[in-house]
């Protein structure tokens, strides 16, 4: 069944194009041009997710988001053309599930929508601790890794390496330090060096394993897990 999306944005032409694009990807998009229309539609019908613009002619997107959050737990993806770092923090703090700055790639909008829909879909179980880096999710509880909400297969040792790196994102981790962290892990293949495991992980989670964006090699020094992976 097609997922129903409500897009609240006063830019009719953009909304129309997003409607076409997401329609082609199997979503059913309804557009509301004002905050009031959006609220009315949400009361009348049920939606699987809301795309909410931060600047609306009749309402402040942040207020609207807060209001929606008070009454429902529908996933909210915020759009903004302001792009101030403050907006992002505030948006996520008041209950938006994700945030995308205009101009955006429709492909990315689609991927993020899928990710927040999946996240909400699995909310029956207790929320386990999840590390998020843009489109990448590392679920510590379930010990699985997802890109765009899609599970990628890696071995449990590789997961341990990935987690060790991700928990130190933005810092250089030498091979020795990495081995130290992994000491407690059961080695399943002694003959393979860390580098081989890293390239397996890359094959699983990088868009182009030859041009890694997530796990970077620093020759002669070690590895870095990128903090800011999508832009």
């Amino acid at each position, binding site marked *: 069944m097609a997922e129903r999306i409500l897009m609240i944005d006063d830019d009719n032409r*953009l909304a129309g194009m997003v409607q076409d*694009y997401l329609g082609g990807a199997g979503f059913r998009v309804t557009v509301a041009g004002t905050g009031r229309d959006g609220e009315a539609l949400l009361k009348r019908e049920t939606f699987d997710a809301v795309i909410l613009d931060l600047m609306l002619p009749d309402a402040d997107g942040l207020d609207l988001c807060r209001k929606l959050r008070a009454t429902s737990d529908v996933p909210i993806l915020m759009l903004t053309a302001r792009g101030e770092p403050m907006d992002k923090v505030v948006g996520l703090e008041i209950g938006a599930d994700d945030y995308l700055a205009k101009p955006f790639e*429709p492909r990315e909008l689609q991927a993020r929508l899928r990710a927040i829909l999946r996240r909400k879909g699995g909310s029956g179980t207790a929320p386990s601790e999840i590390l998020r880096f843009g489109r990448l999710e590392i679920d510590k509880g379930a010990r699985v890794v997802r890109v765009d909400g899609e599970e990628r297969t890696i071995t449990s040792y590789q997961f341990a390496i990935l987690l060790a790196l991700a928990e130190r994102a933005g810092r250089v981790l030498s091979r020795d330090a990495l081995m130290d962290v992994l000491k407690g892990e059961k080695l399943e293949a002694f003959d393979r060096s860390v580098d081989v495991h890293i390239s397996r992980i890359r094959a699983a989670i990088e868009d182009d394993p030859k041009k890694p964006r997530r796990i970077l090699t620093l020759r002669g020094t070690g590895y870095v897990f990128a903090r800011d992976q999508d832009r």
Partner: protein
Amino acid sequence: MQRLYLQFYVTILVVLAVFVGAAVLLWRVADDDNRTPQYLDVAAELTGALLPEINAPRPDQQRAIEALQRKLRFDIALYESDGDLIAMAGKVPPRFNVERARVGWRRGPGGPNFTLQLPDGRWLVARQVRERPNPIFWIAAALGMVAIAVAIAAFPVVRGLGRRLERLRAGVDRLGGGDLAARVKVEGRDEVAALAESFNRSAQRIEELVTAHRMLLANASHELRTPLARIAVAAALLGQNADPKTRDSLKQDVAELDQLIEQILLASRLEAVPTLEHREPVDLLALAAEEASHYDLEATGQPVTVSGDRTLLRRLVRNLVENARRYGGEGPITVSVTDEGGRAVLNVSDHGPGVPEAERQRIFEPFYRLAGGAETGRGSGLGLALVLDIARRHGGDAVCLAAAGGGSRFRVDLPVV
């Protein structure tokens, strides 16, 4: 710095000291003024009439002096005109020197003396028995007390004035430091209070202007990004039908415009705040590697941790790499981070045409374009200006050098934590 209230206060103290000194001096001068009013002559005649003749026997003279002493309760001594003691009553008189004797009241160690020369040439010296201290001392002491009282009373007044001025100065400094909400308390109704009021009014106006300016920029950014978002979506909607080269160049243009808007916003935001808003430990090598990876480059070097604003440092690295990619020709771009004796040094080198020595400083100016170079390429023209601003904001510097083997090398050094 010379504190204003101290200057005021020292001035008051000096004025008081001068006043007391002048008063004492005047007293002395007035006192020393040697007048012989008529009453002295009258007193001499009368006293002469009371006392026995000059050639009367000594015991008579002694008796007469003692009688006088009982009546007047003065220590009294009678001398010959040549200074020999004839008779005395009461305490021993001070040494009497005819050479220096003068009629009238005189201060002496034992109290004021009254000296008279009788018409027949004898000298009579009387000293007040009630030992009153020196009146000069009393006057000086009284004046001193008044001076101390004035000094003590003046201190809080002067200090209060100084404090208000200092508070005003702190307010001006805060405003200058970028805190546009800085206001000062208006105390009293004098000139300082009026100054505080005008300061508050000016600060209010500045805040309004800057806020309006920022709002304008934020709104302009919104207005510019809205059509950009449409173009980006439209480019994606072109789908497979479109020429991939056209689509990619369209995407590139959208990304460039977006970057330009962001840099203008960032530059105006930085203008408003002269210091760093956030500080955290940042692994510069990791950051450089991350940024380099977006251009399919690898960073090399040693991990160095600096304390700074991660978003700004990321912008610094990105701008340098972007600059190298645009103007650095075809050759490889190298990104390295090293620790050079307490300084974290980031080098980004390219193999482009390089920058003439004369222009290596000027290229950090906003929107500066190399002279002589034909169309050197597109660019925001703000990228390097932001690099320099961010480096300085972190207590470091950015310079452009010639790279070994042609091209340019941009070197940023930052203090290590």
